[in-house]
């Protein structure tokens, strides 16, 4: 016997959080005559339990939950069997997606990548000249556009007059490797990344013959100065293409923008922010790298209904006087979050894999200590010297 449940309305959170700060809540008059109040723990207790029920961070590392089902099995989290008719629709969807769309798309993708490799190799043999740059751009654009078709990506570009120019760095929020395709099919960029082995490595080596991409060896990635130097040298050369960087450092599920690593914002050049927002109704674009391998992910992408997204090119920004790299990074991040309708978070995307640093807990402890000390001093003034125990 099958359970029939109504589709869940998942809009909004599970709980309503009170926006009260530590100082506000603990300063309120309460029990006990001393400076430490045994009820002070209630604040931390409630906040702790609230975070167990619903926290801002862990939900960014899994696919966004949808309000209503989009007929893809992988989006079916809490919705059980609803009706026979829906199951038939879903079955039909599976037939269309896997029987028709997927083979078509795979063929296109293989063509696109194949052409990319072959043509960039040919262009790569040419001597460095304007003709080479021109051909390289044309080849790249064409092949990326074929790949974009292979995903049936329907992209809307906004404010194209703000498109990144040479000598600048383009930063965008990161949801999936497809972000690169989406941006590269509308403009030419120098990509930055780690040098891989295997097929990916082969493609990287081929691409770099025609176009000055920046690939780092694994060992070089740790050396921040080296990275910064190579990026600076690149942007200083005005003939080179703008660099494309994803400062979050990892894929986030497109509901929020997480901490931007300050490395790219320390370089003295113009930053071109770009906001990318996917429409989750047509397919989940987020790559959950701990759950799916790249190939599985691409297969999911090519068997979704489509990839629908909006790209906003924001006006260029430069670091202002007296602003340090972190503040600048946060300013750019807020602008991107606002434009894309995403939640602006200060948390590090690296929390996907690593533990949070102790220093944040120490900040909380410091904050509470301050409040406690203020209360102690207040009592001293009110009551005179402390009573002996």
């Amino acid at each position, binding site marked *: 016997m099958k359970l029939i449940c109504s589709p*869940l309305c998942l809009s909004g959170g599970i709980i*309503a959080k009170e926006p009260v700060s530590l100082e506000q809540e603990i300063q309120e008059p309460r029990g*006990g005559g*001393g400076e430490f109040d045994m009820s002070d723990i209630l604040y931390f207790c409630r906040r702790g*339990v609230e975070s167990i029920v619903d926290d801002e961070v862990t939900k960014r590392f899994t696919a966004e939950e949808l309000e209503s089902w989009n007929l893809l099995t992988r989006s079916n989290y809490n919705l059980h069997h609803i009706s026979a008719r829906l199951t038939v629709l879903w079955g039909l969807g599976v037939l269309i997606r896997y029987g028709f769309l997927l083979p078509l798309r795979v063929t296109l993708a293989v063509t696109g990548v194949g052409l990319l490799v072959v043509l960039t190799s040919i262009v790569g043999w040419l001597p460095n000249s304007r003709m080479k740059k021109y051909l390289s751009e044309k080849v790249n654009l064409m092949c990326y556009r074929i790949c974009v078709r292979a995903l049936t990506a329907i992209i809307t570009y906004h404010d194209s007059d703000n498109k990144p120019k040479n000598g600048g760095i383009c930063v965008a929020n990161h949801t999936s490797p497809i972000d690169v395709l989406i941006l590269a099919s509308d403009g030419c960029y120098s990509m930055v990344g780690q040098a891989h082995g295997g097929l990916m490595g082969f493609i990287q080596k081929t691409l770099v013959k025609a176009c000055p991409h920046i690939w780092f060896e694994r060992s070089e990635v740790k050396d921040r100065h080296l990275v910064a130097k190579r990026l600076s040298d690149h942007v200083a050369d005005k003939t080179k293409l703008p660099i494309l960087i994803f400062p979050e450092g990892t894929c986030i599920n497109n509901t929020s923008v997480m901490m931007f690593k300050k490395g790219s914002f320390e370089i003295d050049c113009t930053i071109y922010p770009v906001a990318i927002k996917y429409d989750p109704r047509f397919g989940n674009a987020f790559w959950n790298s701990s759950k799916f391998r790249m190939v599985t992910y691409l297969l999911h992408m090519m068997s979704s209904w489509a990839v629908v997204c909006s790209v906003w090119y924001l006006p260029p920004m430069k670091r202002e006087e007296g602003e340090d790299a972190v503040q600048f990074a946060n300013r750019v991040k807020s602008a991107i979050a606002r434009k894309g309708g995403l939640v602006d978070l200060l948390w590090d995307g690296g929390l996907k894999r690593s533990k949070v640093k102790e220093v944040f807990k120490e900040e909380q402890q410091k904050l509470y*200590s301050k409040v406690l000390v203020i209360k102690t001093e207040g009592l001293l003034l009110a009551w005179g010297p*402390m009573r002996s125990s």
Partner: protein
Amino acid sequence: PLWCDKVLLRASRRVEIAYFSHSQITRLYSRFHSLDKGENGALSREDFQRIPELAINPLGDRIINAFFPEGEDQVNFRGFMRTLAHFRPVEDNEKSKGHDASEPLNSRNNKLLFAFRLYDLDRDDKISRDELLQVLRMMVGVNISDEQLGSIADRTIQEADTNGDMSISFSEFIKVLEKVDVEQKMSIRFLH
């Protein structure tokens, strides 16, 4: 997943269903499942510690502890809901809802007991000077000296201790907090 239905059916026979609506239970189960990285139907302490906001909470470890029954390392969904039930707001019409004569989990008394147990680690129904110091140290970190913290603890016990045994019993604890709006401070508003 199919076995989720079985859990819900089993849970519905328990008292915990009185605290949460059907849609709330489903959402809490979804949350439980997303925290359960090992996918074995139970949460371990590591699963909780993976929540950054909880990891930076000075009382994080104590709060996590409250979910685990005495001596156990795993908490199942029922236990998860049971602990969360303490934080349901107290409603006036709830007095008639009791299935049996026992007090509801989210009563003022049970909320106070929950808070008391955050202090009373050895469960001897008394908060000793040491236990108080431990919690104080967790909350202030390295920012206050041992001496000053010691005197704060002494003064706190002095204020609360009415029977002179240099520790705080549960009834003394209740007395100390009688003017505090515990119902509001220890309640979380669950939506739907």
